[in-house]
């Protein structure tokens, strides 16, 4: 992994090989949720990019939706005690 990274850093002459590109694309493919793509199958990179775009858009939408729910919940809940509980549970 580190060798690959140092190789790409040396490539100020932009000698990025096709293999490196397809490797990066397969890493993206691994990030996609199961429902969107068969992770075993070999998928053309255009498809991976397409699905990644869709996935990012859906994540943005989730952030919007969760922001709205959080703003509603903030209004009704007691922040300080919940904050303590969260922080404690996260740091344990």
């Amino acid at each position, binding site marked *: 992994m*580190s060798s690959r990274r140092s190789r790409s850093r040396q490539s100020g002459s932009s000698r990025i090989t096709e293999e490196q590109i397809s490797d990066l694309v397969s890493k993206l493919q691994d*990030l996609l949720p199961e429902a969107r793509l068969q992770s075993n199958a070999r998928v053309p990179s255009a498809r991976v*990019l397409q699905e990644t775009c869709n996935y*990012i858009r859906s994540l943005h939408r*989730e952030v919007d939706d969760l*922001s709205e729910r959080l703003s509603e919940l903030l209004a009704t809940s007691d922040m300080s005690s919940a904050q303590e509980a969260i922080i404690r549970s996260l*740091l344990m």
Partner: protein
Amino acid sequence: MAVKRTAPSPPTPRPNPNPNRRAPVSGADAASPSKRMLAFHFIRALARIHRSTPVPRRTRTIRRAAYSSMARAANPRRVWSRALLQQMRARRARTRRAAVLRRRVSAAPATPPGGARSITGEDQESTTLAALARTTAAAVPHRQAGEPARADALRRLVPGGNEMEYSNLLEETADYVRCLRAQVQLMQGLVDLFSGR
């Protein structure tokens, strides 16, 4: 001369009396965002919003806080995190400038829109508006040879994506997706926690 660092054995954890203090990240993994850092930034922002933001503006403010805390918790060497923070700052400056302009326009006596622009005040406004237009106009994506057409859409989605080389774009996208996912998980966890109370 790069020295290969092996991860040191983790030190014995000291009892942390102050739960609000940032927890030290041992052997920071550059690949995945630290969930604690994410939580720290976002919860701090949430507390501030809870204290001082009026209710009608909260959703928008929380959304912005999600992105800026995500960018702050991320590796600062990432292009997307720097670009995201820049965008936030520019947006804040823009709204401030727009508010100033609105005040100036409403205060000044009625001037014809296409009329004489000899006054320095008019020039300042026009140049400021031109600058605003420049920053808001979509930068032409830098398309490289051999890059699939889909990459254009990706460049628009990933912050700072327009300026990157294709291989960098792929790396940055992977990191961005990981951080986005962690942020969504954090927010979902908070929603569950709050609604469970």
